[in-house]
Structure formats: structure tokens, C-alpha cells
């Protein structure tokens, strides 16, 4: 595989400044100019020439390729959520993006809002006990969900998070993470719980976390108020799992990118560490987990013992940085049928001769060439037209 043209990284520090580095392997002593853009507008530039021992240790030139930048206070766009981009000036190569959360505002009405919410909660409980309705038809559930959404919007507007106060969760910010773990944050509270569960494992596994905000729940933007070093990307168009997955795969810095689907279990610290160790020994590959709902006859061969562990904890997709760069993104043409998009990626990998493993849970199904989640007719037609000639089972499905 060709040597990468430029390596670099960008991180937001807890004090609001940014640090990072960039380096060209082919020109190891060259000092590069880094532009920092706020929402695609140039805000500040610097020669990346600060010495960093970690870069020197990794053999990146003489280690003098770091930078630290603080955006000027009058930078346009900083009063709301902003996408910060790091770009090498001469080549225009973008090597880092950080979503900076909007500054929180004070919430004088917050406690009162909480009190009203508790009172209304009690009211709904009374209503349910007085007239037990059928589970699915429970009107209080509908009202509660409507009120919950309203409260969420008010809280988000006031800069208040839906989770209780407490010490911040500090995520690791490894300079060259072994793993990028990513998922979509549809609801703030669930996302917060998932981050809290993942955090210990991330530190152990030298992994970074990337959270995709599809813009469904306004309170998701408040995650960074409680989670330090959180990298969050906004899927502005709310284009679904495939687009979110592509975002995470493209922006992760880890050697391997691990996509957690909505329905897979959050791996414990031990499982994440074991997975990272297993993957470190495995050859570059594309892995498909249970959410992909796909298997191929030619990958039913037993996996080597060192890499059998992922089958027990669940994941949607795990792909090497280099493999993803070679294969390109998931095809958004499959719409909501992301199982078919994963299958399409896997078949492209097979055509390119990339080592492929499909890991299923609990037992890899055998016998069928392709299994898939329910998909729309249009997505199926696209899949058949592309791959039907490859396998009669696909053509006839």
C-alpha cells in the first residue's frame, strides 16, 4: 500500500484551545503550515513546529511538528456549534475535524422545570394505576413521550443536560488510537449511558470514541458539557445509518474502525480490551458483525483462536483504515437497507482480494450464500443488478 501523503491529528483541549500535529513522511524535516477553519472559513494559521516527544518516539521526523492554537475570541461562528477543520495549507489536505459544542447558557428556570416534570410524572402514574390500559395503548406513555420531548427541547435551549450532575467523564485522547469506536446518538440519555459504559474500556484498549449526532435529539449537543475529549460529528442531513457510518469511518483516526449498531450490546471494558488485542494480531480485514445480517459460504471456515472473541460481544462493522481507504464508502443508494450496504462492501472487498471475515452471533449460519435483513424492493433490485451475476443465490433471492 502506498505511503500516506500526510499524517496529522487535531484535538480540542479542555480549555477550548486546539492541539495537534501534521507531518509528511516523504519530507520528514519540512515544517508545514496548518490552517484552522471554523465552519470552512479560515480563522488562524500556524507553522506546526512545536516539539512533541511522542512524535519523536514514533519516528516522525525530529518530533517538531506539533501545534497549539487558540481561536481568537472574535472568530465568527463560535457563539454556536461549529465545525473546526485542520488543513495543511500547501496541499489543502484536511487531516482533522472536531465538532465544537455550542457554549452552554445559564438556566434560571431549570430547577422549576425539573419540579414540574416530577409532578407530571407522578400524575401519569396515578392515571395508569386508576385505569390500567393495554400496554401498547397506554395514553400516559404517549403523553409522557410528548412531554419528554418538550422538556428535552427546553432543557437543551437552556443548556441543561438530562442526566444528573456529576464529575465529568474523561475519554482518552490517544495520539494514534488502535481503534475508533463509533455509534449514532439518537437520544441523549441513552448515548450518555453508552459513553459512560464504554469509557473504561476505551482507555484500556487505546481507543477513541466518535459519536455521530443525527440531529434527532437536541440534547445530544450537551454531551460534550459532561464528557471531556468527546469527538462528535454532526450528520446534518440526518441521512441515516449508512451516511453516519461513512462519516465515522472517514473521520476516525484509529487503525481499525469499529461501528456499534443500535441493537448490539455495548462491550464491557474487558471485552473491548480483548477485542483490541485480538484485532492487533489479526491481518487487515473487513469484519461484519451480527447487525450486518449477512454471511458468505466462503467465510464459514473456522476463525483462528486469536480472533474468535469478537463473535461474542457484537458489532456491526469493523474495518481497517487502509482497507476502508481502498474500498471507499458504503453505498447510500441502499437507503435504510444497511445490511445490503454492508454486503455490497464485503463483496467489493472480495473482488479486491481483501481478507474477509464475517463474524456472526451467536453461531455463524451456514448453507446460505447470503442472508439479509428485510430490505426495500428498490434496494434489493440494486443489489441483484450489481451482484446477481456473481452468485445464483443472489440472483434468485
Amino acid at each position: 500500500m502506498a505511503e500516506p501523503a500526510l499524517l496529522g491529528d487535531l484535538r480540542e483541549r479542555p480549555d477550548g484551545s486546539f492541539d495537534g500535529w501534521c507531518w509528511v513522511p516523504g519530507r520528514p524535516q519540512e515544517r508545514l503550515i496548518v490552517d484552522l477553519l471554523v465552519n470552512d472559513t479560515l480563522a488562524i494559521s500556524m507553522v506546526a513546529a512545536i516539539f512533541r516527544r511522542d512524535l519523536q518516539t514514533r519516528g516522525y521526523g525530529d518530533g517538531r511538528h506539533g501545534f497549539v492554537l487558540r481561536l481568537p475570541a472574535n472568530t465568527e461562528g463560535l457563539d454556536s456549534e461549529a465545525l473546526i477543520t485542520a488543513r495543511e495549507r500547501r496541499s489543502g489536505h484536511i487531516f482533522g475535524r472536531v465538532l465544537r459544542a455550542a457554549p452552554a447558557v445559564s438556566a434560571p428556570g431549570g430547577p422549576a422545570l425539573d419540579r414540574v416534570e416530577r409532578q407530571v410524572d407522578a400524575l401519569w402514574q396515578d392515571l395508569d394505576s386508576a385505569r390500567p390500559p393495554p400496554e401498547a395503548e397506554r395514553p400516559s406513555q404517549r403523553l409522557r413521550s410528548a412531554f419528554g420531548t418538550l422538556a428535552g427541547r427546553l432543557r437543551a435551549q437552556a443548556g441543561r443536560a438530562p442526566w444528573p450532575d456529576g464529575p465529568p467523564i474523561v475519554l482518552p485522547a490517544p495520539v494514534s488510537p488502535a481503534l475508533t469506536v463509533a455509534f449514532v446518538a439518537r437520544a441523549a440519555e441513552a448515548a450518555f449511558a453508552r459513553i459512560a459504559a464504554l469509557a473504561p474500556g476505551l482507555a484500556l484498549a487505546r481507543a477513541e470514541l466518535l459519536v455521530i449526532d443525527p440531529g434527532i435529539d437536541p440534547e445530544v449537543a450537551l454531551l460534550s458539557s459532561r464528557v471531556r475529549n468527546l469527538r462528535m460529528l454532526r450528520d446534518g442531513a440526518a441521512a441515516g445509518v449508512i451516511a453516519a457510518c461513512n462519516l465515522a469511518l472517514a473521520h476516525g483516526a484509529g487503525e481499525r474502525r469499529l461501528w456499534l449498531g443500535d441493537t448490539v450490546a455495548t462491550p464491557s471494558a474487558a471485552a473491548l480490551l480483548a477485542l483490541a488485542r485480538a484485532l492487533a494480531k489479526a491481518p487487515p480485514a473487513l469484519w461484519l458483525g451480527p447487525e450486518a445480517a449477512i454471511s458468505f459460504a466462503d467465510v464459514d471456515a473456522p476463525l483462528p483462536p486469536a480472533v474468535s472473541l469478537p463473535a461474542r460481544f457484537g458489532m456491526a462493522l469493523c474495518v481497517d483504515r487502509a482497507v476502508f481507504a481502498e474500498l471507499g464508502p458504503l453505498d447510500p443508494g441502499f437507503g435504510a437497507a444497511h445490511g445490503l450496504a454492508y454486503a455490497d462492501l464485503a463483496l467489493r472487498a472480495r473482488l479486491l482480494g481483501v481478507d474477509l471475515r464475517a463474524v456472526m452471533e451467536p453461531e455463524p449460519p451456514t448453507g446460505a450464500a447470503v442472508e439479509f435483513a428485510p430490505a426495500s424492493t428498490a434496494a434489493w433490485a440494486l443489489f441483484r443488478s450489481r451482484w446477481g451475476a456473481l452468485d445464483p443465490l443472489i440472483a434468485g433471492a
Partner: protein
Amino acid sequence: MTRRDSFLECEPGVIRLFGAADIGTKGMVSGWSGPEEGHNWNDGVEAACAVAVKPPVTRLMLSVMGEPYVTRARPAQEITLYGNGYRLGFWRLSARAETALLVALEPEWWLERGAKAVMRLMLHMPHSVRPKDINDGQDSRELAFCYRSMCLRPIAG
């Protein structure tokens, strides 16, 4: 003797770092100690550096970041900055803290030399002192200000 480049070529808006990694000896005409990691001290009461930008030159804001050498025995440092003979600014610094020296540079103060507009910056620091002379270590350089970074930023309008 180390060869010193005639000018420090600057791109407006780009922060340059004093010290071995970036500026090094480029444009450091006289009155400087050797470049160190991430900073460069003056050595003597006058330090000169020559900067160059590509014409046409617009109004630029020169910002120099660094830290004055201030101790109980030398409670303040003074810096007067001249550019091509024009007196640009004066600062009296009494806090040993990260400090920004800011001054606006008018286009007519630059000298055009072919494809370059150049300015010789002269920093006059009359209270430079040898730390060893005031019982503050063994350093025998004449110090006033630890220079860390500089930038020429275009001024809007």
C-alpha cells in the same frame, strides 16, 4: 559561525515560532542568543531581525508573544520597537507572564526590494541584564525578553 539568512519570509496570518524548529536563525540579524526549543532570548540591549512579505503590502498587525525577564532585582523590562527607523511602540513590562506585544504596521513603512517588501525590526531593551550579575543563576547572557512566537495579521478595512 552559523550562517544567518538575510530575511525571515512571512506569510500574513501565519504564526511563526521562535526557536530551533521554525524561525531558527532566519532573519535574526544581531543581538540574539542561539535559538532554543520553542523560544529565543535576546542577548544584549539591542536585537534586530529582518522580516519580508510579498508585495503588495496591506495594513498588518504585528503580534509578538513572549515573556519578560523580570525578577525582584530587575522588576521591569522596557522594550521600544522600531521598524525601518520608525518608532512603532513602547512597552513597560513588570509581570513575569505570557505577554503580547501588538503594533499596527502601515504599508508605507515597508521597503520594497524587488519581489519582497522588507522591514528591519529593532528591539531596544535597555534593562537587559545578566542573571548571574543579579545572583539569579549562572546565565551570562544579557536577557530582557524570551521571544516565543510572532505573526503578521492583515487588518480588516
